[in-house]
């Protein structure tokens, strides 16, 4: 089995190395062939694994690959843990990655960095696989930071653009803030959970530590598990873009669209969700940590959804939608519904990757204009993109029978059964979020695919918007838009094929997977729930009577009607009476500004953290180093020595003074000897 798992993990790496180091020699075609081959091997084997787990033929695999480090008698190895939780992530990562690889052939075909791009996305796939297959915290952190690195490289892929290099630095640093907490959490695990960092050992040690407290502040006793879990969750907040560490994700849209789909929607950003699920034996022991998770998730789910409403850039709408959906998953974690969170990770991966890739297809059709105000009526020109987008949007808003319906409804049900204090707020936020999601999704859908064809009339406005991108001739994703005599066109088959292939699971996977995944005991021991304290999932299982019953039941519950209301409102606002949103905008101008400014968080963070640390650094440098240490002490001493030698030199000018000089030297020598004797005693 080990060789099989090595093959799954390493084949994308091989592709990445070949395309990255030798891409200049083998050319474009070979570069995409070799990377796609690598990922295809991984995807095929992963599917085989998942099948084995679904049919109960596979055993949990947990073994080291090689010893990375030994300290104090403990071995810290790179190693694989493959269980049902891993298997589901393997399939999600490799299948979406494969779709994105194929799509990239079309999307990046004119880009001079073609081989580099393929090398990066294969490297990303490898890193993500190492993350999800890890059996220990160190390798988890390796993968964790490695996907962050590739994300950094890809957001800044068009490194000439100032906005891109600003966004990638921001993404890396905000993620590092999360990793800072994560690393300290790992430190506490190492320090208190028996000295090993293997999951199995740590989880085995955890029950005995249930009542263990530590003093972080002198005199204040805190539960060890609560502190550890919250610190670990800070890592998840960075990677999965939870409030208040979410600010990097919208800016990450500076990267090419394929990676927005792969990294910033389907896979990397779900690493935090995966991690908390993996650590469920720890999180289950701290209700405080679960409450924190509920609150962070609920805020993200609702308030990031609001921001999606005011965006005009098609990618940014999808980006805020991703933030909001990540909030849903996080709430599921807080409600101890880990399997539901993972289910939503999977369905979301398919329909969100679909929406992003469809947005990319629209962007290609619009000649790299991303402003929805310049679109409209595209369904005539891009039929495949249109239908698949509709499928993705319906899945996203939770239309019955679509995959998103099953996962999202389950989350809302799960949080309603949670007894934690924060669950009430979370439930409210998720319900309100359903309306918001439906509204912004169909706002986008109507603006892009229906209504008037605006690309001819609005030409000046979008050119004004493009002033900051001057290097248009080189990069593929530059925003020049259609010229007046052009019409949008459907994208080539390499672009539309992945759309169709992703649309299929976006519709079907919920119906077929909900029973085995959530209620069929698929996750077995890979997810641990303390059913006494958190009985929610047990209650849900009692109420579950199959996917069809869920649909009929939904007719009598709020979420479905909220979603319908959202769609209808969007239709009224953007198809029937476009004066209404304008009117609302002017009436509630301050709210609108607040939303357009993204709650001013970027400005606050920049002023406090970026400028603050630079001001502090300047202070330490100019005052501490240059004025006090160098100016006063070092150069002062030098001047003192200079002055002293000046005196000594004068002493030596005449014959008589040489006596005095000798005398001073003698006295100094005596003092030294006396001092030496003093020490010697």
């Amino acid at each position: 089995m080990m060789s099989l798992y090595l093959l799954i993990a390493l084949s994308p790496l091989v592709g990445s190395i070949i395309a990255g180091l030798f891409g200049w020699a083998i050319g474009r075609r070979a570069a995409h062939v070799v990377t796609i081959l690598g990922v295809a091997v991984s995807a095929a084997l992963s599917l085989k694994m998942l099948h084995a787990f679904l049919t109960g033929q596979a055993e949990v695999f947990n073994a080291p690959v090689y010893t990375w480090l030994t300290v104090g008698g403990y071995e810290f190895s790179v190693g694989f843990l493959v269980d049902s939780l891993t298997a589901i992530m393997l399939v999600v990562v490799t299948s979406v990655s494969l779709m994105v690889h194929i799509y990239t052939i079309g999307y990046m075909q004119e880009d001079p960095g073609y081989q580099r791009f393929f090398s990066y996305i294969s490297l990303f796939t490898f890193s993500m696989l190492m993350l999800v297959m890890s059996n220990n915290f160190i390798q988890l952190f390796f993968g964790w930071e490695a996907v962050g690195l590739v994300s950094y490289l890809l957001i800044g892929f068009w490194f000439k653009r100032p906005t891109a290099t600003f966004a990638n630095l921001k993404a890396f640093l905000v993620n590092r803030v999360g990793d800072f907490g994560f690393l300290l959490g790992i430190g506490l695990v190492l320090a208190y959970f028996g000295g090993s960092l293997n999951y199995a050992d740590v989880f085995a040690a955890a029950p005995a530590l249930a009542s263990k407290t530590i003093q972080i502040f002198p005199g204040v006793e805190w539960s060890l598990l609560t502190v550890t879990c919250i610190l670990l969750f800070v890592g998840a907040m960075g990677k999965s873009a939870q409030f208040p560490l979410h600010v990097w994700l919208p800016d990450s849209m500076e990267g090419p669209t394929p990676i927005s789909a792969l990294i910033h929607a389907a896979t990397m950003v779900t690493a935090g969700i995966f991690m908390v699920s993996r650590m469920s034996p720890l999180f289950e022991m701290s209700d405080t940590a679960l409450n924190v998770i509920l609150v962070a998730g609920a805020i993200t789910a609702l308030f990031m959804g609001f921001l999606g409403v005011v965006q005009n850039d098609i990618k940014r709408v999808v980006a805020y939608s991703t933030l909001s959906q990540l909030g849903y998953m996080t709430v599921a974690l807080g409600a101890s519904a880990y399997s539901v969170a993972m289910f939503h990770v999977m369905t979301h991966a398919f329909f969100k990757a679909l929406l992003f890739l469809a947005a990319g297809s629209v962007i290609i059709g619009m000649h790299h204009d991303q402003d929805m105000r310049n679109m409209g009526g595209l369904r005539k020109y891009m039929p495949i993109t249109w239908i698949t987008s509709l499928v993705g949007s319906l899945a996203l808003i939770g239309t019955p029978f679509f995959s998103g319906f099953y996962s999202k409804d389950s989350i809302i049900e799960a949080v309603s059964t949670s007894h934690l204090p924060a669950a009430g707020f979370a439930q409210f936020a998720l319900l309100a979020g359903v309306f918001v999601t439906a509204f912004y999704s169909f706002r986008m859908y109507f603006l892009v695919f229906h209504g008037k064809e605006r690309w001819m009339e609005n030409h000046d406005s979008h050119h004004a918007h493009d002033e900051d991108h001057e290097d248009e001739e080189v990069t593929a994703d530059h925003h020049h838009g259609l010229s007046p005599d052009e019409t949008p066109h459907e994208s080539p088959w390499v672009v539309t094929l992945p759309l169709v292939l992703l649309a299929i699971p976006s519709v079907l996977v919920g119906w077929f997977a909900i029973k085995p995944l959530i209620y069929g005991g698929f996750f077995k021991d890979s997810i641990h729930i303390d059913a006494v304290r958190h009985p929610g999932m047990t209650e849900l299982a009692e109420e579950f009577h199959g996917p069809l019953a869920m649909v009929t039941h939904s007719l009598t519950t709020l979420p479905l009607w909220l979603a319908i209301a959202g769609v209808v409102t969007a239709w009224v606002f953007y198809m029937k009476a476009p004066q209404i949103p304008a009117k609302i905008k002017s009436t509630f101008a301050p709210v609108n500004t607040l939303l357009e400014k993204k709650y001013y968080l970027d400005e606050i963070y920049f002023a406090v953290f970026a400028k603050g640390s630079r001001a502090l650094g300047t202070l330490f440098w100019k005052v501490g180093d240059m004025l006090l240490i160098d100016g006063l002490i070092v150069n002062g001493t030098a001047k003192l020595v200079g002055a002293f030698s000046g005196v000594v030199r004068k002493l030596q000018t005449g014959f008589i003074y040489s006596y005095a000089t000798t005398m001073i030297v003698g006295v100094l020598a005596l003092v030294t000897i006396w001092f030496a004797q003093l020490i010697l005693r």
Partner: protein
Amino acid sequence: MFENLLSLTVWTPIVAGILVLATGGDQRAALARWIALAGALAGLAVSLPLYTGFDNLNGGMQFVEMKPWIDALNIHYHLGVDGISMLFIILNSFTTLMVVAAGWQVIEKRVAQYMAAFLIMSGLINGAFAALDAILFYVFFEGMLIPMYLIIGVWGGPRRVYASIKFFLYTLLGSLLMLVAFIYLYFQAGKTFDIMAFHDLKIALSTQILLFIAFFLSFAVKVPMWPVHTWLPDAHVEAPTGGSMVLAAITLKIGAYGFLRFALPILPDASRELAPFMVTLSLIAVVYIGLVALVQTDMKKLVAYSSISHMGFVTLGLFMFAGNNLNQWAVEGALVQMVSHGFVSAAMFFCIGVMYDRVHSRNIADYGGVANKMPIFAAFMMLFAMANSGLPATSGFVGEFMVIMGAVQVNFWFAFAAATTLIFGAAYTLWMYKRVIFGDVANDHVAEMKDVNKREFLILAILAITVLGMGLFPQAFVAKMHLTVNDLIAHVAQSKL
């Protein structure tokens, strides 16, 4: 063949250096270069058996050589290495090879003298790491400064006089007191300068503290620790690329090594008493210097400050006491950090040197968009910048990770302060990288930059392999030091009052 191995590592580079000097003026510069390269290769070749022949199951001194030197004062030519010093001898021999290659075409004037200075310095540094006699150590320790003075003073930048005076003033301050301490210990130990004999001395706490201060002033300047660090940025800025590489990769390590070889085992009680002081200075170095690095406008200064910040992890790890015991994670982490920093800082300074050779500026503002003209170079520098930011799978992660893991076990807030380097380290390194490498071609000078040549590529590739290799297989280094560190911890745990 192992009897004289350490002598070979000390004298091979020195003899090669003298041979290089014998080539004379610049009319035979080519010959001087090749002899220097052969000497550096030979130096590395004779040091590698130290690794392969090292007995992992022996924590004590290996490859010991001892001959009388000055009988009247009972001074010996006494060499030996344990699992700690052995690694630094190899690191030094490796760095020397990199430096000779780095100066190959760049240095055009007084080539023989330049190459000779590095080779001789390399031998002296190996001597300092291998010396088991305090006076022998002192001679090597002071002797290695002379070539460095010359390197900065002759091949340095415009403010080299100020830099070397500053360097001189700082180091003079400490090393004389260290000599006094040695003389005191000589009498206490029954008129011997044997360092191992020093380790067994019983010393009163007040005396230990005085001796600690003497050692501290000598070694803290070398590390350098805050607040005696301000010579380093100036020295780096004025030094030629090779000088900076050796300074960062090796010379700083001697300071930390001094704490390890002298202060901790000879003065365990004083070390314990003063550990809070050492930890505080180390954490100031990590945080304060990290912020100072952020606002630098000169690339070399930035990397110099980043070195100080990274060395803060070393001194932090070395003085991480929990009760009587040093924390093993922290000590081994400090050692790994020392080796890793040798690779990463050398690579960073080399990268800056590569750009300096083309544009003749170290100012960040004079660059921008280098990746457009030098994509291969940009890829290498990305790797080293990430290593400098402590990215896992590079060597830069391992040491910092281990020290932080050790610190959590002792005091959460030590770890908290140290871990801020995750943020600040990435911020100053990647912000510089962004301004220098990313963006559109900033000016005509950048537009004329040519990508790395074969020699530069080879150096970068070798450094990249070491940085990745150490990040992926740190066990290859750590396995060698386990027993020595265990012995050290056990030794330090014993009170000597």
